[in-house]
């Protein structure tokens, strides 16, 4: 029943030990602080270009990527890619430098927020093209299949991206080629200012999975453990030769489509989500209530993350910009 939200089978903490829980929390917290800081920095005018923030959606990136390893597993992301990058272990300082357009950035300043990538971590790139990632993920999955290395490839896309032909073709191809691929549809209710309820014919992205011959499920994207469980099943299925799956994660973005968006199209949704559903708050409540972690442990992570982001911004601002000599390098390997 794709339209019913799953609740995790293990209602407590998903069988993760304290170190793993701290790790997950650190990932989500890093994303949150990274994004909130960018929100503030963008307002100062220092950050060039278009920036799409992932705040509010952290449980998805963390819940999915927690299952992946850097070597053999690949993800492809979207324009809203910072969270996926962080969860896939792209260097946070290099990311920040990239967003500031610095030579020390992940892409030497040539890519910017929409194109952060780190192929050495299996991060195939944020993407400025809605629907750009899913075909690439089919290819990464194919490479793993041909090599037999047990790797899994994961495509993140939004509710808007679920209407793009490239995404839909990829669902079919993944089934036909029986690929070790997983499709994570992050349905945050909007594509720019357009409501998913309006733009997703039929109303459910998860329901599209069956139409292309793969299992589909819908999870509460504020619940790290729910995402983790559903993604884990899909990833396990892919890894063990069971073929592709789709998981629709329902969530809310806390900021506008991009920085600058006045958001007159929505009303009190964000306030409610922040107050009642927030993934970090829920995680904290859950793991402290279960006795797996103490508030002090989590606070320590908060401090560690705050320091990291502060350093990242300071270093990014101080880092050198690329120079004229960089303009025409790295277009080709040889030419």
């Amino acid at each position: 029943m794709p339209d019913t939200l799953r609740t995790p089978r293990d209602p407590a903490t998903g069988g993760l030990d304290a170190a793993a829980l701290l790790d997950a929390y650190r990932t989500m917290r890093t994303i949150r602080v990274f994004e909130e800081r960018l929100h503030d920095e963008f307002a100062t005018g220092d950050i060039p270009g278009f920036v799409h923030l992932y705040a509010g959606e952290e449980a998805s990136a963390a819940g999915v990527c927690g299952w992946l390893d850097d070597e053999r597993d690949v993800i492809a992301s979207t324009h809203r890619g910072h969270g996926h990058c962080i969860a896939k272990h792209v260097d946070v300082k290099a990311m920040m430098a990239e967003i500031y357009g610095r030579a020390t950035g992940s892409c030497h300043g040539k890519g910017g927020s929409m194109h952060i990538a780190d192929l050495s971590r299996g991060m195939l790139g944020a993407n400025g093209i809605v629907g750009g990632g899913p075909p690439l993920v089919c290819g990464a999955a194919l490479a793993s299949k041909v090599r037999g290395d047990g790797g899994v490839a994961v495509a993140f896309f939004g509710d808007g991206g679920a209407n793009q032909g490239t995404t839909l073709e990829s669902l079919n191809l993944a089934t036909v080629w029986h690929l070790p691929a997983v499709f994570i549809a992050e349905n945050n209710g909007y594509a720019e200012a357009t409501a998913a309820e309006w733009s997703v014919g039929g109303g459910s992205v998860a329901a599209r999975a069956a139409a292309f011959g793969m299992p589909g499920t819908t999870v509460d994207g504020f619940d790290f453990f729910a995402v983790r469980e559903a993604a884990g099943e899909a990833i396990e299925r892919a890894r063990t030769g069971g073929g592709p799956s789709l998981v629709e994660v329902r969530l809310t973005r806390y900021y506008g489509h991009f920085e600058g968006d006045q958001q007159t199209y929505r009303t009190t949704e964000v306030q409610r989500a922040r107050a009642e559903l927030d993934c970090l708050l829920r995680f904290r409540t859950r793991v402290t209530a279960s006795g797996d972690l103490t508030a002090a442990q989590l606070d320590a992570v908060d401090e560690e993350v705050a320091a990291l982001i502060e350093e990242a911004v300071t270093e990014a601002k101080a880092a050198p910009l690329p120079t004229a000599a960089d303009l025409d390098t790295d277009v080709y390997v040889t030419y």
Partner: protein
Amino acid sequence: MSRNITYREAINEALVQEMERDPSVVVLGEDNAGGAGAPGESDAWGGVLGVTKGLQPRFPDRVLDTPISESAFIGAAIGAATRGLRPVAELMFIDFMGVCLDQIFNQAAKFRYMFGGRAVTPVVIRTMYGAGLRAAAQHSQSLYPVFTSVPGLKVALPSSPYEAKGLLVQAIRDDDPVIFCEHKALYDTVGEVPAESYAIPFGEAQIVREGGDVTIVALGRMVSVAVEAADELAASGVRCEIVDPRTTSPLDEDTILESVEHTGRLVVVDEAGPRCGTAADIAALVAGKAFGALRAPVGTVTPPHTPVPFSPPLEDLYVPDATRVAAAVKSVLDWKA
């Protein structure tokens, strides 16, 4: 009556006036109103940079938001055009052409010829191009040479608010498919624009400035860059003639050739790339048809053969500027056989 309005307002005004005049004009694109299905404001965006803002309240049934499905909705605009509507569809960024090009170049462009003259497809595809907003490699390209190369398409590149309004009115009234390319860095530029409706015919270049020493053909946003360079050069006594073709297809070959016949020298300034681009196209035209008048090599000023870089200093180096244009003019003037 003329007022000073922005390029953005000029486009919006052309749309409003044509929609008022002709009930078959419909506007569609991603968030062209904005807020479809959402609880807040409808017309929440008016397009990602506000160009179509205000249309939907005025013409509620003729401004359509779309899912992110460019092939389907650009194709729908084309199909609707064959059935009597005059759709103005927005391809948000020209960089997105790769997800819907087939409908444009194999369908819209070819219907008339393939069907033996028995089709009319009056569709306009408005799209945003160009660098300068730090929007990086997939949101900053100047891809109109691709459309210019396609038989059956017309391509307009307004360089000012005045051109924006008049060319868009013509595009909407035109019976052929038109790719209407708006430079995103021009939206806030201001210029004098008549309040009443007017159409600028396609294929008629504008001589932006007269001068006898060298012809500069400049396209789109590069027209103002050429003017800046010409101002600099005027200080040292060089008189540039600046030609703005306004449409690359049809191209006003005569005006360009006449100008070169007169000046004997040509520099083409274009934000599209150096390979198989509009600069090469115009250079080749002149090398073929005005060779006898040419007294120096044809100069071209374009970005390098690289994607558009993100980092501001690189992007600023990427886009041709007045300094590079002036240098090209000088090297053409100084050339000795």
